[in-house]
């Protein structure tokens, strides 16, 4: 009880100094909370972008780059070119094919990957592009009055392995209306379309869309999470394999992406190595490695939060601890006679140090409370003032640059490209969530700071010889 009385009286007596020390700690702690929250927010945003790109539960994506096609005019070059000859009437063309630069893997690789150690599940998928063109008639070409659709329009189409619909990009989609796929849909011409595409194209459930010249009935509209939108339409994998064309062949027994769920996060690197050994030449991308490929202001913010923010917080903490320690030591210097007197009265050094540590701990707790409040204010400020961030992510990770991909190269009038590895930019709203862990760490840091300051002062007090302490003043 005397301990508390003495402690209370001392803090009341040195209230202004105690407030200065507590505020110093609070600023440091507030910065740590703010930076930690901003950093967590950036990580969450990054994770959301990657999750949308990969799909819920997907840890690794296996793709392969397309082999470089021969140059135009060389033997076999025709297989890589599609040429349409204008006729007397305009022609409508709907082609489902691979995005340029993305190569094919055998479907038989999927069960092999699934059997690898550390793999929980694997599913194949086809990331495709459906291009719709109107080939103008000879008369239109000659007159220069090309139809509006002559430059073509492309939608992205994903073939979904219905046996493993929980893996891959479709897994992160939420059905907003209609229904999702069932096993019975495997060989049907049914599609689930993205809400953004549906709105833009005025599509509803029950409508039909043209994919590879086939009318697919829309059974559901999905809402993609933030950063999503990797496909405009999802169709059963078997139908995609049957309808898509690559080098004049269908894609039966082929996939262009294998989605892998690892048994645990720790197993991911080992699985990556196993896959690399099983499928030499394939590109094995994990969310961690893809995170490095995310660019744009989100990446800049992540870098800022990780590097500058972290060091700023560390510097602020060190400064706060140092100031608190110096002020406490200065306070001890002013109380030399008091401590000398206590030693003369029979107080042992640990008791005096404990008294000092008690005072410092109370200041630390006050600093922690104020620091957490400052942290909440800081995060609110970050959320209010932070500009809208954007993340630029690759459309088809693992694809090769396109070469000689064009439609009707002879006329030079109609060309359509989807650049592989092209980036799509996703707007990201930065939040700065203050977690219980961050608060706990902040409180612990503040109390530790107080105790470090108290220890510095206590060490000085403990070293004082009573005669010296009494003589220095008297």
């Amino acid at each position, binding site marked *: 009880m005397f301990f508390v009385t003495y402690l209370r009286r001392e803090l009341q*007596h040195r209230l202004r100094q105690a407030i200065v020390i507590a505020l110093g700690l609070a600023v440091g702690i507030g910065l740590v909370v703010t930076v930690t929250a901003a950093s967590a927010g950036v990580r969450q945003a990054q994770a959301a972008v990657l999750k949308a790109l990969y799909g819920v539960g997907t840890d690794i994506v296996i793709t392969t780059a397309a082999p470089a096609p021969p140059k135009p005019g060389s033997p076999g070059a025709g297989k890589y070119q599609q040429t349409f000859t204008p006729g007397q009437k305009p022609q409508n063309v709907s082609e489902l094919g691979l995005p340029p630069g993305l190569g094919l893997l055998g479907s038989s690789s999927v069960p092999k990957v699934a059997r690898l150690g550390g793999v929980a599940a694997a599913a194949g998928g086809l990331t495709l592009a459906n291009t719709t063109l109107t080939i103008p008639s000879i008369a239109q070409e000659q007159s220069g009055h090309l139809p509006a659709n002559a430059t073509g329009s492309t939608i992205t189409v994903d073939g979904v392995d219905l046996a493993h619909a929980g893996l891959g990009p479709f897994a992160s989609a939420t059905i907003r209306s209609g229904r999702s796929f069932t096993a019975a849909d495997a060989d049907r011409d049914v599609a689930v379309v993205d809400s953004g595409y549906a709105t833009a194209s005025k599509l509803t459930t029950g409508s039909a869309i043209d994919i590879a010249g086939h009318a697919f009935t829309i059974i559901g509209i999905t809402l993609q999470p933030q950063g999503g939108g990797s496909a405009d339409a999802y169709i059963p994998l078997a139908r995609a394999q049957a309808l898509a064309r690559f080098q004049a062949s269908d894609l039966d027994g082929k996939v262009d992406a294998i989605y892998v769920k690892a048994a645990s996060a720790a197993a991911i690197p080992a699985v990556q190595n196993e896959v690399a050994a099983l499928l030499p030449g394939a590109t094995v991308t994990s969310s961690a490695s893809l995170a490095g490929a995310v660019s744009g202001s989100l990446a800049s913010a992540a870098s800022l939060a990780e590097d500058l923010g972290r060091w700023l917080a560390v510097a602020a903490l060190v400064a706060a601890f140092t100031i608190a320690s110096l002020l406490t030591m200065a306070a001890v210097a002013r109380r030399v006679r008091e401590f000398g*007197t206590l*030693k003369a009265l029979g107080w042992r050094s640990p008791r005096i140090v404990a008294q000092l540590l008690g005072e410092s701990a109370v200041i630390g707790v006050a600093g922690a409370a104020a620091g957490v409040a400052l942290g909440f204010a800081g995060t609110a400020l970050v959320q209010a003032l932070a500009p809208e961030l954007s993340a630029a992510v690759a459309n088809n990770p693992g694809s090769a640059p396109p070469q000689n991909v064009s439609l009707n190269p002879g006329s030079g009038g109609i060309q359509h490209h989807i650049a592989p590895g092209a980036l799509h930019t996703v707007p990201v709203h930065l939040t700065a969530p203050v977690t219980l862990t961050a608060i706990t760490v902040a409180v612990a840091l503040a109390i530790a700071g107080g105790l470090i300051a108290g220890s510095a002062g206590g060490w000085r007090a403990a070293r004082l010889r009573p*005669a010296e302490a009494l003589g220095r003043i008297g």
Partner: protein
Amino acid sequence: MYALTGVTRTFRKHSGTIAAVQDIDLVIGDGEWLAIQGRTGHGKTTLLNLLGGLDRPTSGTITLNGHDLTAMSENQITRIRAATIGFIFQTFNLIPTLTAAENVQAALIPLHIAAAERRERTAAALDSVGLLDRARHLPSELSGGQQQRLGIARALAKQPVVLLADEPTGNLDEDTRDEIITLLENLRHQNKLTVVLVTHDTSLAYRAPRVGIMRNGRLSIRQDHDRATT
């Protein structure tokens, strides 16, 4: 009983080694009142610090009731100080943030006695110096004489066997000085205390039956009969 044998305390300064106390042999009996007189800088306070275990001699031994203070650990000396030795300081050395009662209680904390007994002893000590009605006052609310009386109460609350007083009236006016010394004499009789009082004030020193004169770190003792013959 104190017994000092060949006690020397030197300090290293920039100019060389200075002997504050040199080769002192001294015995102080139980219940004795010894005044140590001398000019400033001749080693009075250093000797008092050595007696109180606040400092250690460079050479020689000091025993208190058979316990060799020079051979004890810091913790052991601290325990002796807590239970046996009371200090009175020239500048009172009260804790400014604590009340009069709490200042007295501060001396009882190292004894680890129950709170109720601590309160009783505190009240008795304050009563013995006439400050019971000022128990809740801060030192800054007391006069110089009252502050020194509080210092005496704090020294006596632990019921020590030795009272070491370093210029206890140095900061007080003449009337208050007499009041404090009279109080000390009475308390010494009541509590059968051994008192060592350091002062530069000759009139005050000669109220003690035995006076030691410190000069250049050396001590010479004069008894009552010596003074009678000089």
